[in-house]
């Protein structure tokens, strides 16, 4: 592992961010809008019921948005290379697939932490959210969602590399597609059996089930979160394997050299 080459991926993104307001605004705009929307919905629900929806609903939305930011943090930096047709320049350098992916991940850490910071500030200052409601479990919750977000981001990059730039439209809806299965807003019990089976293999579902259980005052169990962490690790391993396989195929077929929406088949 050569950290100069990893730093090159980071530096490139830093240059792009520094010189472009249109890249800076999305880092905090959408998460802020979501916090305001769900914050007021939570406040309204609190006025018509006796429950406190802030930790279960607003907290869950905050965590889910963190997952989305992590995933999109990875894919956005990859898309920058797609949009500027930079594959030939990048992959003819000594950078390895592992170094390139680590560069994407570290860039995503930076952008997702900015999003998390903005969400926490808004949710705490305006809607009375407290991360203390989850205690020490907040850290494993974030860790599972971070690893899962990274794995979905890498898988998204592999899909776009394999199918071409037009396939980026498959990537943006992935979080929306996953959210009904992982139970961000409701317990998994209310889902039909087949959806619950799907939820079993999705690491995020263990986070949101544990979160609700914790807030409702049930005994804290680390087992589901550990299981979620193990699954997230498996997802990450599988995503890296898929990306490497797609990259090797792209080199075998010459796809890297002629990468554009018109030439990928």
């Amino acid at each position, binding site marked *: 592992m050569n950290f100069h080459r990893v730093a090159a991926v980071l530096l490139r993104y830093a*240059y792009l961010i520094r010189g472009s307001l249109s890249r800076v605004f999305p880092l905090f705009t959408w998460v802020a809008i979501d916090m305001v929307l769900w914050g007021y919905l939570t406040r309204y629900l609190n006025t018509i019921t006796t429950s406190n929806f802030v930790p279960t609903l607003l907290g869950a939305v905050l965590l889910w948005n963190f997952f989305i930011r992590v995933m999109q943090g990875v894919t956005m930096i990859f898309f*920058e290379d797609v949009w500027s047709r930079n594959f*030939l*320049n990048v992959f*003819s*350098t000594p950078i390895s697939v592992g170094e390139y992916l680590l560069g994407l991940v570290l860039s995503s850490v930076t952008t997702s932490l900015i999003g998390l910071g903005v969400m926490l500030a808004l949710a705490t200052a305006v809607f009375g959210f407290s991360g203390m409601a989850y205690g020490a479990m907040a850290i494993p919750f974030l860790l599972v969602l971070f690893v899962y977000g990274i794995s979905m981001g890498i898988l998204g990059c592999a899909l776009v590399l394999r199918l071409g730039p037009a396939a980026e439209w498959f990537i943006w809806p992935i979080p929306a597609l996953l959210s009904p299965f992982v139970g961000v807003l409701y317990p998994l019990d209310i889902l039909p059996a087949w959806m619950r089976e799907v939820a079993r293999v999705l690491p995020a579902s263990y986070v949101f089930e544990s979160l609700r259980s914790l807030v409702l005052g049930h005994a804290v169990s680390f087992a589901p979160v550990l299981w979620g962490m193990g699954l997230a690790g498996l997802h990450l391993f599988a995503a890296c394997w898929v990306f490497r396989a797609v990259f090797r195929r792209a080199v075998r077929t010459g796809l*890297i050299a002629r990468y554009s929406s018109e030439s990928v088949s």
Partner: protein
Amino acid sequence: MDGVSFCVRPGEIVGLLGPNGAGKTTTINMVMGVLEPDSGFIAVEGSFLSTQRSNALSRMNFAAGYAPLPGNLTVYQNLRVFSLLYSVAHPRNRIDALLEQFDLRKFRHVKCGTLSSGEQTRVSLAKALLNHPPLLLLDEPTASLDPATARRIRLEIRSYVDESRAGVLWTSHNMHEVAEVCNRVLFLSRGRILLEGDPKTLPALHGKKNLEDLFVAVALEPLSIEQVSQ
């Protein structure tokens, strides 16, 4: 490609010639690791591309008109990023020297996307020399340059080769340029090497007046040329 085998020696500029679709860019893509050959091997200074990819790629660099550097970064930012990718020692000094060498100082903080195609080609050439590559791959490096700039670029590359003893694989459709800079040429046709030799003596050996006539003959009648060369 079919049975293509050649070497580029230190201090040598090898011209890769042939009509459109002959396999020149395919050959360069294979050498720079973005297209895997079905069989055979590619090695740079003893490092095999298939098994020591990073080592082999750190010993080469390339410039091509169809692969400009990202237009959304400035000239300096692009060179800084690629200096990290190639682990260049003292990158600021190296970048300053290359900006001077390729007359790019005034474009240091200009985004590459706003440069003319000739200026972008010069930026690509500056990138290609960042790591003092022992093997330089140039795919039609002067295609979009005016004659004066093209001549200057040829001189810069020639002087780089003389100083560093690097090897260069150079494709071009400009036969005068090839005759001027190349020590040896390889004629490709339909994925095979048809002819190889000194660009100054090769045309006469095949009954042609100059390299351009030989090129036309290879493009139009590759079989007759192949029979003569056998």
